[in-house]
């Protein structure tokens, strides 16, 4: 016997978890020093942050930060790398977020970062993005132990003063 569920884009079970993947709201990343996705449900176990043609005004590396009630700015263990043909691999470590390389204000970047819940508010992440205006790959990894249940993701820069000036960003989340 099969069960057919029809007429809805999602199914919610008793615990409040929405089965399947839920999309946030895509926003233009064309202004501001940070973009926050807030009110992420407590049952979420995986978050995918998607970058489409994103650029910032300077060369400050990018940061993705998680939070519980407020944005957590310390305690991350993250390293990012830039892979470019015939150029030595460049790496940078971070404690203030999941770092993503950014070596040019002209860089236009697309790709994804995926955060996964290890357990007990410990999150891990990986990121793979590419410059669409040249031939470089940016990749990163990260772990963080949050003080509580995750409810937000912030996308910003290390320096915090560069502004977004192109593209769009959205998230997917799932339980």
């Amino acid at each position: 016997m099969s069960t057919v569920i029809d007429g809805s884009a999602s199914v919610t079970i008793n615990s409040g978890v929405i089965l399947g993947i839920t999309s946030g709201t895509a926003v233009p990343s064309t202004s501001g020093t940070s973009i926050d996705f807030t009110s992420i449900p407590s049952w979420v176990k995986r978050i995918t942050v998607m970058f489409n043609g994103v650029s910032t005004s300077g060369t400050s590396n990018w940061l993705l930060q998680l939070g519980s009630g407020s944005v957590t700015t310390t305690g991350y263990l993250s390293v990012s790398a830039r892979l470019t043909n015939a150029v030595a691999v460049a790496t940078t470590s971070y404690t203030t977020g999941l770092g993503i390389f950014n070596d040019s204000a002209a860089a236009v970047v697309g790709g994804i970062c995926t955060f996964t819940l290890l357990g007990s508010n410990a999150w891990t992440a990986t990121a793979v993005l590419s410059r669409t205006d040249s031939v470089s790959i940016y990749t990163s990894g990260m772990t963080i132990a949050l003080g509580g249940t995750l409810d937000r993701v912030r996308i910003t820069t290390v320096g915090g003063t560069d502004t977004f000036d192109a593209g769009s960003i959205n998230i997917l989340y799932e339980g």
Partner: protein
Amino acid sequence: MTHRIVVNVETGVVTQVEYTAEEQAVHDAALAAQALAEAQVLAEAQAAAAVVVAPTEPVA
């Protein structure tokens, strides 16, 4: 004023949140420090380029 973008994923509401006066002051100070550092790097580079190497006598 500088701002950040906030997206509430439950409601789908997108809000532009302006910096407070304190946040703006921190932001402006960071920009000023960054400009100063860049100016110092440029000045050092120009000074290094301006170093004149004394000519030496040709070896007979």
